[in-house]
């Protein structure tokens, strides 16, 4: 009964979405306030209905209602409660419901917080949001209905893929979707601006916080996914250039470009059409990502099911969602007026360079990810593009971008002085040089590239701090004055510094992975293995019982110079329902390095294959990402009053005659 209620709520939400996509748009064109106001109410009601459907589905999972096909196929009564809940989106149907839930959440948020927006802009934005919602609700209802009943209901479910029974599933997809779908707001604003034929600074002030919020969530989502892949065996480590990883990385790259170009629109009233194009492309890539992951064209753990009807539906949806805005763009964009003039060497120029490098880098990733699909569709044979391709194309394009990070913020708007910016970065250059020499002194020549990577990280880190020091006039003015200046700096400035520091930390973590050490041995209880100054002693291997699995658990005592560092317990688990073995790695992290232990197969004679890794600075990869996201949040907290001032200036503008 509850499931039918959820099904009905979804169908009702589709009806509301259709109203929301048509009525406000007509209202905005005709200047009809009543029709325009319909957008807000329908958006909020649509969110409530989808939330109800999601709750109904979650209820079915929690109470193990196996008369529902998705529950029977993906859940089991012995599954721990946390995984019953996360199992809701651990399959195709449920993950699409989560997708739409987040989409309608953003739609409702625009309706709720956007009351100060000009009514016609708000109506058009909500209308575009309604169209996306209608398309995805139709997709769920017609091709992937999560509320399909089974008769007779099986006595128990088939269980979830054991590799998904992990805390990673609880947090990675929701954040990723918050990011993907969050870009729909920027997309809706872009399309609305194209319909209106007008972009002003207030538009950018509205788009930036939404983009920033989506970008933060996507950054966290990608970092969590990378971390999950890192500790799950057989997923290729923290980054494998897997098509599904690329699917989330492409919107991130273009979204990062969007974030930076929106600054120029807001501050300098330039780059408007380019920013609109980026907003469309970012969401288009989010949709492509959804298509890649959900259509099953990829060989991946993420491909839950292969169903041609779904693939065809998404392809049509994709063609309309990307094609229509681009046509609109081609018609409207030439009519937009250009803004402030600037010299090539300027803050604007640096941000353009940032945008060009990011989009070109994204295009190489796009090529590498989709070329095999394209070739196969053309009958050119099956092939796969491996990670060396991406390392040779993407990395060379990132180097100039990373080198320029400290320079950009030191250039003035309109006209910058490159020489003086360089001079002000002499300390940072010195730091990079010292880092390079210090590392080169202890590292072998084979690690020259990794050494350069660490120097690059030092340059970005020191350079970002130098920019902050420059702003507060550190050591040039008396300390109290400096502190006062530091307090007065806007939060967005701190956000930028923090995010750029995060880039430095991540780059350092990636570069240092070259120094990873590894040993594989067959070990018997009582034996020890030495690696990188540590000693790991296998105490025992014993059988243990989990809630829905049995396991062999090894106990290792890891010591350094005789002192105990950690007791680690890697496991080999056998899930009883699926008869499927999974490896549970044990990781000890001190934030400077990870000690990574894997218990392999037993040889039946008391010996066990054991893998030990010592990975220096690896946690920095994700710590840096968290710093980037935190920087975004800090900047977001600054935006609030900016949005307020934007409203005020817009009201003032509206009060003035003419437009």
């Amino acid at each position, binding site marked *: 009964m509850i499931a039918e209620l959820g099904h009905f709520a979804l169908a009702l939400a589709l009806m509301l979405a259709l109203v929301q996509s048509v009525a406000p748009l007509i209202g905005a064109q005709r200047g009809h306030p009543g029709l325009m106001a319909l957008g807000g109410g329908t958006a909020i009601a649509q969110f409530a209905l989808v939330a109800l459907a999601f709750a109904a589905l979650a209820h079915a999972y929690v109470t193990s209602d196996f008369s529902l*096909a998705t529950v*029977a*196929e993906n859940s089991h009564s012995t599954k721990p409660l946390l995984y019953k809940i996360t199992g809701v989106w651990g399959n195709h149907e449920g993950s699409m419901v989560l997708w739409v839930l987040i989409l309608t959440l953003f739609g409702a948020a625009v309706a709720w917080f956007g009351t100060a927006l000009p009514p016609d802009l708000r109506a058009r934005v909500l209308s575009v949001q309604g169209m996306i919602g209608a398309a995805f609700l139709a997709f769920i209802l017609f091709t992937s209905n999560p509320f*399909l*009943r*089974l*008769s*007779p*209901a*099986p006595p128990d*479910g088939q269980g979830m*893929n054991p*590799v998904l029974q992990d805390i990673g599933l609880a947090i990675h997809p929701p954040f990723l979707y918050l990011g993907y779908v969050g870009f729909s707001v920027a997309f809706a604003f872009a399309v609305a601006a194209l319909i209106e034929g007008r972009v002003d600074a207030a538009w950018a002030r509205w788009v930036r916080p939404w983009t920033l919020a989506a970008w933060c969530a996507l950054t966290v989502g990608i970092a969590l996914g990378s971390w999950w892949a890192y500790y799950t*065996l*057989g*997923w*290729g480590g923290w980054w494998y250039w897997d098509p599904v990883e690329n699917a989330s990385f492409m919107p991130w790259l273009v979204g990062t470009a969007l974030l930076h170009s929106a600054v120029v629109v807001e501050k300098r009233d330039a780059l408007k059409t380019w920013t609109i194009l980026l907003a469309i492309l970012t969401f288009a890539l989010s949709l492509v990502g959804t298509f890649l992951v959900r259509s099953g*064209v990829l*060989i*991946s753990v993420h491909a*839950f099911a*292969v169903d041609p009807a779904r693939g065809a539906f998404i392809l049509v949806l994709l063609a309309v969602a990307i094609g229509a805005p681009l046509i609109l763009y081609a018609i409207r964009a030439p009519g937009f007026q250009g803004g402030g*003039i600037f*010299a*090539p060497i300027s803050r604007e120029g640096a941000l*353009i*360079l940032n945008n*060009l*490098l990011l989009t*070109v*880098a994204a*295009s*190489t990733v796009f090529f*590498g990810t989709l070329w095999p699909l394209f070739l196969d569709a053309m009958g050119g*044979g*099956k*092939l*796969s593009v*491996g990670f*060396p*391709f991406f390392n*040779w*194309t993407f990395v*060379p*394009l990132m180097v100039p971008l990373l080198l320029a990070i400290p320079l950009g913020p030191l250039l003035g708007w309109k006209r910058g002085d490159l020489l003086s910016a360089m001079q002000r970065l002499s300390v940072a250059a010195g730091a990079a040089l010292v880092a390079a020499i210090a590392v080169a002194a202890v590292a072998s020549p084979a690690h020259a590239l990794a050494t350069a990577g660490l120097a690059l990280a030092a340059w970005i880190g020191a350079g970002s701090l130098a920019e902050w020091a420059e702003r507060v006039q550190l050591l040039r003015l008396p300390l109290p004055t400096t502190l006062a200046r530091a307090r007065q700096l806007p939060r967005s400035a701190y956000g930028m510094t923090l995010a750029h520091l995060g880039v430095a930390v991540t780059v350092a973590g990636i570069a240092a992975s070259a120094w990873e050490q*590894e040993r*594989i*041995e*067959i070990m018997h209880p009582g034996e020890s293995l030495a690696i990188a100054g540590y000693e790991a002693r296998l105490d025992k291997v014993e059988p243990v019982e989990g809630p829905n699995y049995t396991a062999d658990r090894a106990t290792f005592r890891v010591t350094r110079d005789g002192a105990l560092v950690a007791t680690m317990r890697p496991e080999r688990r056998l899930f009883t329902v*699926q008869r*499927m*073995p*999974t*490896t549970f790695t044990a990781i000890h992290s001190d934030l400077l390095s990870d000690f990574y232990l894997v218990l*392999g*197969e037993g*040889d039946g004679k008391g*010996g066990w*294959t054991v*893998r030990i890794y010592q990975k220096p600075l690896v946690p920095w990869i994700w710590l840096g990402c968290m710093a980037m996201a935190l920087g975004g949040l800090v900047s977001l907290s600054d935006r609030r009053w900016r949005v307020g001032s934007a409203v005020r200036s817009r009201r003032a503008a509206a009060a003035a005659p003419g437009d």
Partner: protein
Amino acid sequence: MKRKHRRLLAVAIGLGLLGLAAALVLNALSNSGALAFFATPTDLAEKPPSPERRIRLGGLVETGSVKRASDGKSLDFRITDGKSTVPVTYDIANGPVPDLFREGQGVVVEGKLQSGGVFRADTLLAKHDERYMPPEVAEALKRTGHWQGEHPPAGQAKP
């Protein structure tokens, strides 16, 4: 600098970067490590590729063929598509054997066919669960007539 010139400069830099990216892409594609062509055991038997070419080989792990070296450092098995079989050797220093690697199950390996006819794999993929088979493997099995069909669903869906 006039607006027109500024835009021209931005476009020129953009085109230059795209050209650079195209050069990088072509360079990466010409390198044998970046691309792997999918083949079945029958393909390899009929037209042995050159030992330099990277191949992605898919099929089923032949039942009874898996042998682990006594030092635990390499794994030998045979991949079959029902018509032909290829002996494969995998050095586990390249990465752990996936949990889902099992006899009779689908598998995809990447590496090079050596002149002796043994396939030396450096990547072993078995990411799928029982209900999921890599599309390449399914297609290869369909071509050789060894496709068992999709696994039956848990129950019949009510319309």
